[in-house]
């Protein structure tokens, strides 16, 4: 049962990710990515990372992708424009290199103890994550606030024409 659910959602994730590349219109790509994000969050649930699963949906699907969709609607491009594709040969270079990379990764993963039962895992509850975040990872957490601050300023400066 668990394995069926895993395979269904893994297939959805991979299919949606491929669809992101295949679609001509960026809007469809973005929507496909939302599907992939939701599928990955279901996989998080299977890994007992409940908290991260909902956070992933809230931040990724509920905020980041809304921003993408807004920008796509804002610019309202008719189609994926082609034309000056100076680096067309990268496609032919990219695919074999990518497959080689995949081969390397899987070869490495072969050596990982892949038989570990995910059932024996830890619970990724909000309390456990909060505890770790606000004691062990305090410095990165505070640094995060600076990152957000800088992103806020940078985005406003770039986006506003007349300041």
């Amino acid at each position, binding site marked *: *049962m668990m394995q069926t659910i895993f395979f269904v959602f893994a297939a959805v994730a991979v299919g949606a990710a491929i669809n992101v590349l295949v679609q001509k219109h960026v*809007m469809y790509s973005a*929507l496909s990515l*939302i599907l992939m994000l939701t599928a990955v969050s279901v996989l998080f649930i299977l890994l007992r990372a*409940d*908290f991260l*699963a*909902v*956070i992933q*949906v*809230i931040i990724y*699907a*509920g*905020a980041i992708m*809304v921003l993408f*969709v*807004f920008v796509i*609607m804002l610019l309202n491009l008719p189609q994926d424009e082609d034309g000056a594709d100076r680096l067309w040969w990268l496609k032919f270079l990219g695919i074999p290199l990518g497959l080689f990379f995949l081969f390397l990764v899987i070869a490495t993963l072969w050596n990982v103890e892949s038989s570990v039962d995910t059932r024996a895992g830890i619970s990724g*509850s*909000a309390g456990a994550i909060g505890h770790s975040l606000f004691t062990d990872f305090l410095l990165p957490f505070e640094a995060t606030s600076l990152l957000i601050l800088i992103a806020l300023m940078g985005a406003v400066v770039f986006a506003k024409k007349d300041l």
Partner: protein
Amino acid sequence: MIEYLMDSEFLLLLLKIIVIFGGVMGALAYLTWLERKVIARVQMRPGPTRVGPFGLLQPIADGLKFLFKEDVIPTNANTFLYVAAPVVSLIPALLSFSVIPFGPSLQITDLGVGLLFIFAITSLGVYGIVLGGWSSNSKYPLMGAMRSSAQMISYELSLTLSVVGVLLIANTLSLAQIVVSQQRTLLGFIPRWNIFLQPVAFLVYVISAVAETNRLPFDFAESEQELVAGWHTEYSSLKFAMFMLAEYANMVTVSALATIMFLGGWAGPMFGPALLQTALPTVWFVLKVGVFIFFYVLMRATVPRLRYDQLMKFGWKFLLPLSLANIVLTSLIVAIAAS
């Protein structure tokens, strides 16, 4: 697998799902009737009276009428997204009922992250609106979709921040446990509901909830004098009905969440025989939600609409700092009380 399906626990779960799904659907249908009746009374009209006694069969007649209406798909629309948008809007709206505790045992599932699950699900509801407006390929829907989605995300922020104050007191994300945490009393006689501990958060929550569900006085998505019907201008037949259903479902969800977070959930005086005792919590819960819905409808009947820039200004410049200040103050008090 088969044993699991025949398990009595599973059958009980299935029964709960059917009861809640059916109950919610019926309630949503009669909400439209209630709204029309109340608004009519406010405006000194009788409201629907023709179909059945007091017009009680009106929702059924409406549903049948929707079913037989022409299903128009405008030219130049992105057909797939146009058809998918109502479903995308409806599914999240209904899905949040799966974690709401209607009573101590009448809850489909009590997630450890129940509150965040509801927020995650409602944040997906934006896509129904955006897609509906964008795929219609028409001007009013596009403008309506942009406006109402911008409004929704703005007020989602203060909605999210306003409940943090409650969480600081309850220290849990599970909805059932939040209700349980409010079951003591203050000073011996006032119920320890969070509305008394977090009045500011409650105020922010109620205002944001009204804006979040695109209802008057914040219904800029479909301010009919300027944008016709907002993002669902082009929609007809059952697709339109699904958008409406999603809107009402969202209304019930935020009301139920307000009841859980601030009004003690299913808590209420218990009396009578054992059978009544098991039913009473659900009755209290439904009554509290009903008060909220009534307030919603009354607002629609009496309050004039704001202007769009006023709305955005109010959300970003007043509600957001207010809810942040509430968090800081609450956390300071809790920390001092704890140490």
